[in-house]
């Protein structure tokens, strides 16, 4: 399908890039990205992916917008307090770019629903705030062969990696199991600088766009860490996809999805 004049103008700054061009923009238009979590990471990622003209964006979140979210979850506004986050996010994305089809899923990801959720999408973005969800997303994406961006943020720090199942190391190659509840602080307990979601969530959107258009090199096989206090980015080379990984090795010991228990403090609003 040819772009309209309006679309050519809307995407002109992409189209002029030799790594993207009309061809890359068409790939974006035809692509489907699923964002799990419409929060600190998911909000900026959703804004940039919608603006970039990703054809279909799915967004999964079971929460409603809370006043304490607005310090960082820039897709929601003060007026949205009390609304479902997925509805508030969808509304903003459609306002930014009416070309985008937004699918909303007002639910938590679980072992029962995640494979169905990710099935129709080309790239998945993990914007969740807890280890059970991060391990679940990793395992499901590895099992389904879906490329995804993993990220985490806390205080003044953030990190991300891109996983291409069967090629690059997965989250479980780095961390075998989730830490026990409360062993590692969460944002709610430890705080997080709002702009960190902007930095890391935008980098996740960048990886999705690069994956779709084929531009440059993905952050597969590397963990990119960012410390805002010292203003240091580090791109740490990861060991290759291990023979020892319980989920992504050629002989996995985890073949069914696991719903790890969520820390009690995380369940409370």
């Amino acid at each position: 399908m040819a772009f309209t004049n309006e679309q050519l103008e809307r995407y002109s700054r992409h189209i002029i890039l030799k790594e993207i061009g009309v061809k890359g923009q068409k790939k974006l238009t035809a692509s489907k990205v699923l964002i799990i979590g419409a929060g600190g990471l998911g909000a900026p990622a959703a804004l940039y992916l919608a603006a970039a003209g990703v054809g279909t964006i799915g967004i999964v979140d079971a929460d409603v917008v809370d006043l304490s979210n607005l310090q960082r979850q820039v897709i929601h506004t003060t007026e949205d307090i009390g609304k479902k986050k997925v509805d508030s996010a969808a509304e903003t994305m459609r306002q930014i770019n009416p070309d985008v089809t937004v699918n909303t899923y007002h639910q938590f990801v679980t072992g029962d629903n995640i494979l169905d959720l990710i099935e129709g999408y080309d790239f998945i973005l993990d914007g969740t705030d807890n280890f059970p969800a991060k391990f679940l997303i990793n395992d499901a994406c590895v099992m389904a062969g879906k490329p995804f961006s993993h990220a985490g943020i806390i205080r003044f720090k953030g990190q991300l990696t891109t996983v291409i199942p069967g090629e690059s190391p997965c989250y479980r190659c780095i961390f075998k199991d989730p830490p026990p509840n409360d062993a590692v602080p969460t944002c709610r307990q430890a705080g997080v600088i709002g702009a960190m979601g902007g930095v890391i969530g935008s980098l996740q959107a960048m990886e999705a766009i690069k994956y779709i258009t084929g531009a440059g090199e993905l952050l597969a096989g590397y963990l990119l860490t960012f410390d805002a206090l010292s203003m240091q980015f580090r791109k740490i080379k990861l060991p290759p996809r291990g023979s020892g990984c319980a989920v992504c090795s050629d002989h996995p010991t985890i073949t069914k999805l696991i719903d790890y228990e969520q820390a009690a403090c995380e369940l409370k609003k």
Partner: protein
Amino acid sequence: MKIIVSGEKKEVADNLTVAALIEQEKVETPQYVTVSVNEEFIESGSFADRFLHEGDEVEFLYFMGGGK
């Protein structure tokens, strides 16, 4: 001997183990840190027996659970 810890050159004692380095570097939540030496993951059960050598490159990888 000289080793590289998180990208920075460090002078450390000879015969330092990974466990001793974790303590010396005051690693946060040391029970849950993932360690790689020369781009190879070290089993957490063998931190105490894994000796470091001149020029080794050590990385600490931390859990980061936040996102929303």
